[in-house]
């Protein structure tokens, strides 16, 4: 019977494929899901305009992307890692341990983080203090640390609408969460004087931790999925307030209403000027050792940061990226192939 032939040919095919697995001609990119849409826009334009195969772009999160990136040098490892935060020292150490020594860091723009609620709900004019007082696990009252009992936004600040506090915050695996904790919770803690009081009660480190600890009584909900899930939650609970990336909000302005922070409404302009306080830089990391082996890698990095792509009016800004005002410096870094820790 031809079962034998079948199996034999199948095994032969396996053997052939295992040996032919070398020679990759497309760039492989993975990492932050915030950077993912930008990377796909660039990959698409890159393939259209240059004579190279289209790069393959994966998401997965900043941490996961950098982990793959640092796994080693060679065609089995990815060439570019997208990140919504700077690479950590521990990750750099892992990279070095695996022989990934020459890493180019490219900061290509900024992303704003916004609070948005249902389009039909009331307007919110928040400050970091309000958010901290509404969402911190414990607050300082009369010099004592007590569990947070605020039920409505008006409890926190009489100027805010008397609406039940429900906030949808990205889960801890998201890079956005880190920025939220640092730029909103910690800043609000500091500004409201709670940090000082906390330092008096415990010590500096404990106070920092207590500042960013979120409520666990159901008023603050961690969203481990994407912004689409947060949007769906707000759709089913119109009283909720969600944390989004600016670009996501820009794509869904017919369903969402954005809150101002310190009186500044988030937009590409206010984030670029620094008036809107909650923003973060976006990066991608390039494995320099792959330039020359993977065709088009350097061209991809250069293409990404050209004015026509990452500058204002380009397709990335059209999607919601806040262009880096110092893009010329970035272009310099890429064309000179400057690696991290070179100077």
């Amino acid at each position, binding site marked *: 019977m031809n079962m034998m032939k079948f199996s034999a040919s199948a095994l032969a095919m396996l053997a052939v494929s295992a040996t032919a697995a070398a020679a990759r001609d497309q760039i492989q990119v993975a990492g932050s899901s915030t950077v993912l849409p930008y990377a796909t826009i660039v990959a698409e334009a890159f393939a*259209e305009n240059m004579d190279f195969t*289209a790069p393959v772009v994966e998401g997965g999160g900043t941490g996961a992307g950098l982990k793959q990136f640092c796994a080693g040098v060679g065609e089995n490892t990815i060439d570019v890692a997208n990140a919504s935060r700077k690479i950590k020292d521990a990750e750099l150490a892992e990279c070095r341990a695996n022989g990934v020594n020459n890493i180019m860091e490219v900061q290509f723009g900024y992303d704003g983080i916004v609070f948005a609620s249902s389009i039909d709900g009331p307007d919110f004019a928040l400050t970091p203090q309000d958010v901290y007082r509404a969402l911190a696990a414990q607050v300082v009252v009369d010099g004592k640390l007590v569990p947070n009992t605020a039920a409505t936004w008006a409890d926190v600040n009489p100027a805010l609408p008397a609406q039940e506090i429900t906030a949808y915050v990205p889960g801890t695996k998201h890079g956005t969460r880190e920025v939220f904790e640092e730029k909103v919770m910690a800043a609000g803690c500091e500004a409201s004087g709670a940090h000082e009081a906390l330092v008096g009660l415990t010590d500096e480190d404990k106070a920092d931790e207590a500042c960013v600890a979120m409520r666990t009584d159901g008023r603050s909900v961690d969203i481990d999925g994407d912004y689409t899930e947060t949007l769906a939650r707000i759709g089913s609970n119109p009283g909720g307030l969600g944390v989004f990336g600016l670009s996501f909000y820009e*794509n869904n302005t017919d369903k969402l209403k954005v809150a101002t922070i310190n009186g500044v409404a988030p937009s590409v302009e206010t984030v670029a000027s620094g008036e809107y306080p909650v923003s973060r830089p976006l990066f991608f990391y390039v494995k320099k050792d792959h330039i020359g082996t993977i065709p088009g890698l350097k061209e991809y990095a250069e293409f990404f940061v050209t004015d026509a792509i990452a500058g204002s009016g380009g397709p990335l800004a059209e999607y919601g990226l806040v262009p880096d005002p110092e893009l010329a410096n970035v272009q310099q870094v890429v064309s000179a192939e400057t690696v991290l820790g070179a100077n």
Partner: protein
Amino acid sequence: MTDATTPRPHPASPAAPVRRSLLIEDARTKRRNAAERRFRAYGVVAIGLAIAALVFLLFTIFRDGSSAFFQTYARIPVAIEAQVVDPAGNRDPAEMQKVLTMGYGKLLDNALAAYVEENGIQIEGLSERDLSTFFSAQGRADLRNAVLADPALVGTVIEAPVMTSSRVDGMFKGRVSRDSAARDAKTSVAQYELAMAMEKQGDLQTRFNWDFVTSTDSSDNRPEAAGLGVAILGSLYMMLIVLVLSLPIGVAASIYLEEFAPKNRLTDAIEVNISNLAAVPSIVFGILGLAVFVNFVGLPRSAPIVGGLVLTLLTLPTIIISTRAALKAVPPSIRDAALGVGASRMQTMFHHVLPLAMPGILTGTILGLAHALGETAPLLLIGMVAFVTTYPSAPPEGFLDPASALPVQVYNWTQRADPAFFERASGAIIVLLAFLLAMNLLAIYLRRKFERRW
């Protein structure tokens, strides 16, 4: 022991000697009949609930997804201006290539502005941005490809259908209304009115969109151009690998276990393991695939070969179990008769038992394949959730090229910000359901065609 001596009352003659017609129900019969009716009602309710759930599911999917198969195109004259597409003016394709896709947007903007003027369309507050976001960014890319392929087009006026943006497209699908356009930062009321005016003139047409099935995925800036081509090819390649590997291996293993293997602890252990493997969560196979095929063997990420191998492992237990059941269902008399006339065991197997078991084996295999086709979790780990915009080449080299898969494409699209991707995701589910339905129908057909009854 006293019980034994007392005579037991005859069951037909209980204490009360009243005899009544069988047609008159007594209390006990009534209860029994009522219990029976209740039981039937439970069954009907259960089936009703299942059907209602299915109908609801299909209804929402078709409501959300059927519009993905239609697309609005504009047909207006577009002048290919030489100073835009060929600034050097020498018609050298290498020089012209330096004009990026973004540059071609100007041609479409100018064409639309000219159109508005020519047709005397007066709309208050119609801004330049409304004009430039009217067409899909894919339109620029198509235009650029056309011009680069045929530089003679420079300086001429062409009239080809241009894809409109997802918002304009949504206006004709009920996704974008005048009210939502007013709130939406990506469109405006003026754009809405322009679209309506153009439709009235007959220059906007919504027609069946084959590109949704054939073209590649596209970035978040042009959801209207995203298609399933790469995902369908990727799924097809994986199914091919699964079929070629799991059918022979599965059938060989089942024949050996069922007909030839000695009954001992080892084969018992193997049997238990096969049943257990069938119940292992599919994500575990993904982790295995990542560790073995990608990290150890060094096969490329995102490649159908890795997906196919992982799905093969996943379907093997299902195929072995169903094949063994099919072999068991062949009556022993067939084997006895074959052996009786002097056939060897192998001849008995291949000439008599296997052909009779074939319908069952095929059904099991096709259902296993259908299961593998819809599997998402293991593919997430081996890099199939990638953004791939080039078609994989023809097999066998294509097995190593990056590709996507249908269920993964659904997952991918539901995560994108633009609401138009939600429609696409539902459309992709419809395509996936169509494939599953086709496979199940094939299974039924094969079973009917080859089935033998005794």
